[in-house]
């Protein structure tokens, strides 16, 4: 027993606050937009150059000039604005986006994040991920707890980093972790277990050291 992809997205959606500006990565993070609580005003940013991103268009209404950062056709909303890519990342780098939710290959107990390259494999590039994790106020990683049994929550990332000490929260199919960065050292805390998952299950599949704060 563990959370489904939809449940992980639903859990991530609990971190939204009214009035937030949010950037969602591809994959599970995209699903978060389906769980925005009724009445809550959230504006989605698409880093190619759009704020106020709407849902996919109806069939036949696709516009080649209107895509998101994942190159998918999307729609505009009454609140939408368009701007250049430089202006888009000025917004991101400048700390004006409240929340970034994205996937990862590895997260370390010191809040390091790796999600862009595997040495020896074809590298496609980091896209906007490095800018997002460096610039956005709060970074939430949503990912499977392990890669086919191999821990993804590690003592140290062994893949090249996307960002150093950038993660604020990790939501996996098994648990939710928060990073406390207040003190000298970063502390990783287990704050929630997925339905039917035990602390022992998490301990058995997690390399990173964490404090239990359920």
């Amino acid at each position, binding site marked *: 027993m563990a959370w489904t992809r939809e449940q992980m997205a639903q859990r991530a959606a609990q971190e939204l606050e009214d009035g937030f500006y949010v950037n969602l990565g591809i994959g599970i993070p995209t699903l978060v937009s389906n769980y925005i609580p009724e009445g809550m005003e959230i504006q989605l940013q*698409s*880093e*190619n*150059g*759009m704020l106020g991103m709407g*849902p*996919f*268009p*109806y*069939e036949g*209404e*696709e*516009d*080649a*000039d*209107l*895509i*998101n*950062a*994942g*190159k*998918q*056709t*999307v729609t*505009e909303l009454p609140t939408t604005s*368009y*701007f*250049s*890519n*430089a202006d*888009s*990342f*000025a917004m*991101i*780098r400048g700390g004006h986006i409240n929340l970034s939710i994205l996937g990862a290959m590895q997260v370390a107990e010191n809040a*390091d994040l790796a999600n862009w*390259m595997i040495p020896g494999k*074809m*590298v*496609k*590039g*980091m*896209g*906007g*991920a*490095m*800018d997002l994790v*460096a*610039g956005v106020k709060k970074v939430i990683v949503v990912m499977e707890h392990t890669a086919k049994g191999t821990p993804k929550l590690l003592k140290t990332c062994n893949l*090249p*980093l*996307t*960002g*150093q*000490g950038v993660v604020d929260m990790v939501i996996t199919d098994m648990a939710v972790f928060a990073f406390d960065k207040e003190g000298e050292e970063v502390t990783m805390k287990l704050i929630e277990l997925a339905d039917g998952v035990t602390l022992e299950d998490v301990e058995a599949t997690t390399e990173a050291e964490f404090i239990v704060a359920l």
Partner: protein
Amino acid sequence: MSDRKIYADAKTALEGILKDDMTLMSGGFGLCGIPETLIEAVKDSGVKGLTVISNNAGVDGIGLGVLLESKQISTMVSSYVGENKMFAEQYLNGDLEVVFTPQGTLSEQIRAGGAGIPAFFTKTGVGTLVAEGKEVRNFDGEDYVMEMGLTADVALVHAYMADKEGNLVFRKTARNFNPMMATAGKITVVEVEHLVEPGEIDPDHIVVPGVYVQRIVHVPNPVKHIEKRTTRPRN
């Protein structure tokens, strides 16, 4: 207003400004807002050894994909590539060099290049491969990496509308990298879907002032490609 900036077709618009081993910028994000007609003309010119600064590298047979196919590109400066087989092949066998740059750093480098700023600091990439060999400096307790401005011999730009002075506007997310690249080319060549007389665009709506634009070619009704067609059901 004279027609001094207006060229009859893409081939003519690129005449005399292309040479081997030059640096080109090419606007667009994925296949959205790419200067496709100008890219085709670059292919026809046969110019080789190009360094191309572009966020992506097109797909097989479309956009910069055609210049990869014809092996005219030796270096790509991009944030995300490899949507096409040709790219992967040339990259893996060493025919193509790739400089991976974080997207926001790339677009800011281009803006800086156009704005006369040789270098700036950003926290993007600190502690990663991207920062290797670059100066890292602490401001107010936080580390930042120094990145350089970028310019190009020629910038290829796609705009929705231009007036004959070269004032440009863009449509929706087809804006993306086009405005900064227009400022960073020593010579900027623009393909436009709509060409109008000066005064027909509200001066408060102009995104790129004409000073940045040297050559314009009118490409009415271009074919626009959708890379990932995503829809929702009507219910």
